[in-house]
């Protein structure tokens, strides 16, 4: 192993060597630069590997042949080695990225780059306080030099502002250093840490050193200068500024904090969280891509500072957590800055140009996911561990603030991603193969570190999960035709079902069938798509992978990771819809919000453990159990779109593609239901402030069922109608679950199965109609019964099943349902849920009437039947519904006896195909017989009565002379339920929507107002900096005294 000092020597030596080359040989100079950076990176990486694998011990490097503190010494341990690797690699890759501009400016610029990377490495390794100052000044000067690489003339002003601020910082730092030296008689960091903090003077000195270094981290709000640099500098340099400089400065703060002692840690943590929240909040109002990245950098570094503030508390896991966050930040941020170099214009929506190159879109998604802390990236593990530590410490409010800020950050980033995917850009891409290759290398590094972090996690290594790998396999396979990929995908799902189904309890088995086999069936509809259909299969399979893993998960960690997979996968899937951008954003925001609630719940329940088996939820101490219950229930209810948390659903489901709507409605919603099943099964009834939480759930379920149905009735858009209907149906299921008795659970399970079947069917049917008529608005349709008979049949069967009239399985659900609610003594919600039934008839009636009955529109006369592949799954479902109606025992009986083991009762008595309960008997075969007889009788009767009725031609109508104001108002389907609207319209008042948009407006308003702080005046920035120092000083002195 070579001495790590070679990193410094190589950087400096090469920088000096450049001056000896001939003036004209810029290429040789560039090769020298890159060569030196490669040597530096190699040394750093080899030390990282050796230290990580335990082949060597951390090394102390003495200089000048004297021992510290008399001479400067440096150290390379695992943290130092890893950080210098980050720094040097970023430098190397960025050097390639900036090749053209470096050659343009010549070797002086290259020398500056080399010195910057050298100084960053030195700052990381040195153990001497004053030496740190020297390296910091080198970094400042080199930064001011490299800002000039930018062709943006405004960069000049940014560089000057940076210098002004740096002057103030170095004054503070020098004063702090000399008084620290005076108090301790040493400049060596390890020496000083051994001496406990001395008198007031010494602690003040320490404060100055600490605050000066923290200011280098660009804490909010004393950071306007840094944002200006991010906005105007060369993207290749910004990558260094964010990833490398940020990492090095963080480590410097860490060293000094270790020296300052635990009293100061709280202060650092406080500054960290304020910065994390402030930066992410302000990012909400940002439309400039690089400035947004700047805010995000500031926020991430604030977050890591928060973690550093907790270093003592985290113990061994500190490096794992801080490192996970840091490495994710570094790779993702550098990658995004590099990508921004390929986008010509600077508005967020200009990233739409990325679509010219699918690889870049994938890279963009990878970096965004990495930054947001989604699995399987290191930040995911880090967040998991960190939140668990916070929960163990009882730092609940901090945890809440942290999670809310993380949610805002995710919203900002996904909003951006949505724009890139859905907007159009007036500029083409600035394609650069080097740039693309560099971004690809960054993504490869992302995967490598994910593997490492997974391995170290002590949990499952998420990146080696077969379903995930299977989903990712479709990225390279995307060049194949869609049909081939579809075959593969279906085969994969069936295979996964076959290998995981053994050993599951009946409840999980049912959900596995719905989620995995159901997915395979719905994918049949995807055969309809032609061409390649790029970017469909990876998200779809990611979602199914998440669901498959969710059902089979055993620990809270696995459960949460699966939850995130399915959330992200479905987000990408929903985003594919034509007008889905805002809806996909609200979907991901709510979903991640729910996911964070789950995370918090799991963390509190874990009670200090890194993870725990899901079944141990039942053993959570009663002191915290109600809170855990509330958090987990909130997470799951977000997914089932309970009233109040539902506003994402209608848009997301309605705007998704034809074959995606059934997936996200028929299948995805069941994930929330599954969660509630597990939750209630393990935790049972909980009381908070004397309120039985299951009763709250009963109410929520009943309200969702009723209001969802009412809203559904008033929709003009057929898919929105179905979407609101899903809210209502999920309400029934929640209601049933919350009853906490055998019949209630059976009801919920029936709804899970039935809702999957008929909602998938109806969405496919309506989707098929939309494919042919190119509209979802029902008043533009009518009379399609003769043109689309199969679709009509499936809608007919679907609504019969759903409305719960005999003979189809919906009736079975209803029957159990009536039995179930009879067994409860909650009268009011019971009435609500009863009333939801008739309202359900209203919208279902409308669905079939306005689409298929009545008059055919002139422009739709040539409409054909829906495509075969969209019809096929519908017909399968029709077949299933019919047979399930006759033989409900197929599935139900097994589940019934399983639920019996949970509750220890058998309210249903099965004799053959006949079921008996306390309140009555259900004999499906007999019912079929009766219904068939009645139907035939009535049918014959009708034919006989109408045998001589006059046939009227379709367009045999006499119009009056009036010309309608709006053509659609003449259609009978327009405002179909006007009278009902008069009566129940008040329910339509968008209370939840206004609430959430109020929250959103308030946040945006705050952001827009606060960012006016950044006036752009360098002097003002310096004043703010001083103000920050004084404020922190007053707070610290108040806190310490």
């Amino acid at each position, binding site marked *: 192993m070579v001495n790590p000092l070679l990193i410094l020597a190589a950087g400096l030596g090469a920088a000096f060597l450049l001056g000896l080359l001939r003036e004209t040989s810029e290429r040789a100079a560039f090769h020298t630069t890159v060569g030196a950076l490669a040597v530096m990176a190699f040394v750093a990486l080899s030390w990282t590997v050796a230290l990580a694998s335990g082949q060597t011990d951390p090394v102390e490097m003495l200089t000048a042949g004297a021992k510290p503190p008399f001479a400067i010494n440096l150290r390379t341990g695992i943290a130092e080695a890893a950080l210098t690797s980050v720094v040097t690699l970023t430098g190397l890759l960025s050097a390639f990225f900036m090749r053209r501009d470096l050659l343009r400016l010549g070797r002086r610029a290259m020398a500056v780059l080399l010195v910057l990377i050298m100084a960053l490495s030195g700052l990381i390794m040195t153990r001497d306080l*004053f030496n740190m100052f*020297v390296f910091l*000044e080198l970094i*400042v*000067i080199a930064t*001011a*030099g490299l800002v000039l690489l930018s062709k943006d*003339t*405004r960069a*000049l*002003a*940014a*560089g*000057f*502002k940076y*210098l*002004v601020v*740096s*002057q*103030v910082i*170095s*004054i503070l730092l*020098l*004063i702090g*250093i*000399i*008084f620290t*030296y*005076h108090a301790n008689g040493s*400049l060596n960091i390890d020496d000083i840490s051994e001496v406990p903090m001395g008198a007031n003077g010494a602690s003040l000195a320490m404060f100055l050193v600490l605050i000066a270094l923290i200011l280098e981290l660009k804490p909010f709000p004393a950071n*306007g200068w840094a*944002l*200006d640099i991010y*906005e*105007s500098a060369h993207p290749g340099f910004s990558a260094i500024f964010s990833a490398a400089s940020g990492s090095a400065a963080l480590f410097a703060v860490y060293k000094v904090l270790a020296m300052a002692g635990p009293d100061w840690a709280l202060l650092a943590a406080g500054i960290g969280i304020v910065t994390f929240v402030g930066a992410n909040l302000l990012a909400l*109002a940002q439309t400039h891509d690089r400035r947004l990245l700047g805010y995000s950098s500031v926020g991430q570094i604030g977050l890591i500072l928060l973690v550093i503030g907790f270093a003592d508390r985290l113990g061994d896991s500190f490096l794992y957590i801080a490192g996970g966050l840091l490495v994710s930040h570094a790779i993702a941020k550098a990658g995004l800055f590099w990508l921004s170099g390929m986008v010509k214009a600077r508005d967020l929506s200009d990233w739409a140009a990325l679509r010219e190159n699918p690889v870049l879109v994938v890279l963009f998604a990878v970096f965004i996911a990495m930054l947001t802390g989604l699995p399987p990236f290191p930040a995911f593990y880090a967040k998991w561990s960190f939140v668990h530590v916070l929960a163990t410490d009882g730092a609940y409010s901090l945890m809440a603030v942290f999670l809310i800020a993380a949610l805002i950050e995710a919203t900002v980033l996904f909003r951006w991603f949505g724009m890139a995917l859905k907007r159009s850009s007036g500029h083409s891409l600035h394609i650069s193969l080097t740039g693309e290759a560099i971004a690809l290398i960054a993504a490869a590094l992302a995967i490598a570190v994910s593997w490492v972090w997974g391995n170290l996690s002590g949990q499952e290594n998420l990146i080696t999960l077969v379903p995930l790998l299977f989903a990712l396999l479709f990225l390279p396979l995307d060049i194949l035709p869609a049909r081939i990929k579809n075959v593969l995908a279906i085969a994969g799902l069936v295979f996964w079902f076959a290998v995981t189904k053994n050993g599951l309890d009946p409840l999980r088995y049912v959900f596995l069938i719905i989620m995995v086999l159901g997915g395979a069936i719905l994918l049949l509809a995807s055969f309809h798509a032609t061409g390649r259909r790029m970017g469909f299969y990876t998200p779809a399979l990611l979602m199914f992978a998440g669901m498959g893993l969710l059902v089979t998960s055993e620990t809270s960690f696995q459960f949460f990771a699966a939850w995130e997979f399915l959330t992200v996968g479905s987000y990408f899937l929903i985003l594919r819809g034509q007008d889905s951008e805002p809806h996909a954003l609200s979907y991901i925001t709510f979903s991640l919000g729910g996911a964070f609630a789950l995370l918090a719940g799991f963390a509190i329940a874990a009670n200090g453990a890194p993870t725990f088996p899901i079944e141990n939820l039942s053993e959570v101490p009663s002191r915290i159990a109600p809170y855990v219950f509330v958090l987990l229930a909130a997470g799951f209810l977000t997914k089932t779109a309970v009233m109040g948390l539902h506003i994402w659903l209608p848009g997301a489901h309605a705007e998704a593609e034809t074959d995606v709507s059934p997936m996200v409605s028929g299948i995805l919603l069941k994930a929330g239901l599954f969660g509630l099943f597990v939750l209630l099964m393990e935790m049972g009834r909980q009381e908070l402030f004397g309120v039985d939480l299951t009763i709250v759930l009963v109410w929520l379920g009943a309200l969702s069922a009723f209001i969802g149905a009412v809203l559904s009735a008033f929709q003009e858009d057929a898919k929105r109608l179905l979407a609101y209907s899903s809210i209502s149906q999920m309400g029934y299921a929640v209601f049933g679950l919350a009853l906490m008795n055998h019949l209630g659970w059976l009801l919920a399970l029936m709804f899970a199965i039935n809702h999957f079947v008929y909602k998938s069917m109806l969405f496919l049917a309506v989707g098929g109609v939309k494919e042919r008529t190119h509209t979802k608005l029902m008043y533009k349709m009518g009379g399609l019964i003769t043109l689309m008979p199969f679709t009509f049949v499936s809608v007919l069967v679907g609504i019969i099943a759903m409305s719960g009239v005999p003979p189809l399985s919906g009736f079975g659900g209803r029957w159990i349902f009536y039995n179930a609610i009879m067994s409860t003594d909650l009268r009011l919600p019971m009435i609500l849920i009863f009333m939801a039934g008739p309202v359900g008839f209203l919208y279902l009636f409308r669905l079939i009437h306005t689409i298929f009955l009545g008059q055919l529109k002139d422009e739709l006369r040539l409409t054909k039947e829906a495509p075969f592949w969209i019809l096929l799954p519908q017909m399968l479902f029709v077949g299933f519904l019919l047979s399930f109606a006759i033989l409900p025992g197929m599935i139900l009986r097994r589940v019934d006896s399983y639920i019996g083991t949970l509750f220890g009762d058998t309210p249903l008595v099965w004799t053959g195909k006949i079921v008996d309960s306390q309140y009555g008997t259900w004999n499906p075969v007999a019912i079929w017989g009766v219904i068939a007889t009645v139907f035939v009788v009535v049918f014959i009767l009708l034919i006989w009565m109408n045998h001589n009725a006059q046939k009227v031609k379709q367009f045999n109508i006499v119009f009056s002379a009036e010309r309608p104001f709006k053509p659609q108002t003449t259609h009978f389907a327009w405002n179909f339920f006007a009278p009902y609207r008069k009566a129940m319209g008040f329910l339509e008042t968008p209370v939840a929507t206004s609430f959430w948009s109020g929250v959103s407006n308030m946040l945006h308003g705050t952001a827009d107002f606060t*960012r*006016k702080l*950044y*006036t*752009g*005046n*360098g*002097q003002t920035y*310096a*004043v703010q900096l*001083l103000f920050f120092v004084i404020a922190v000083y007053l707070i610290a002195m108040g806190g310490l005294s």
Partner: protein
Amino acid sequence: MTLVQISLATGFALIFLGLYGALSNRNILRMIVSFTIASTGVNLVLVAVGYLPGREAPILDTIPVASAAERITDPVPQALVLTAIVIGLGVTALMLAYAYRLFRARGSLDISDFTELKW
């Protein structure tokens, strides 16, 4: 007041004046001038903190090595200040070059004219 206290107070006062000048003067050149005054103050503070009253310079041409520890003043702050002075010059030169370029760009030396980057 002793010599040390006087120097220390002068140093702090110079920092005070320099910082105030840098934060209240809009002219870029005047800001830079103020910063050089502040860094002179910092240097003075650094040396004064290392001074031991009544002792001599840490050069052993007339002082015997054996009694050095009793007679010389602390050499470390002096070494640090040397470094700080040179670094200060570097930063000043850089700021001046920037000032020139800013003037070229806008024909103005008023810091409040350079605010296109904000929010």
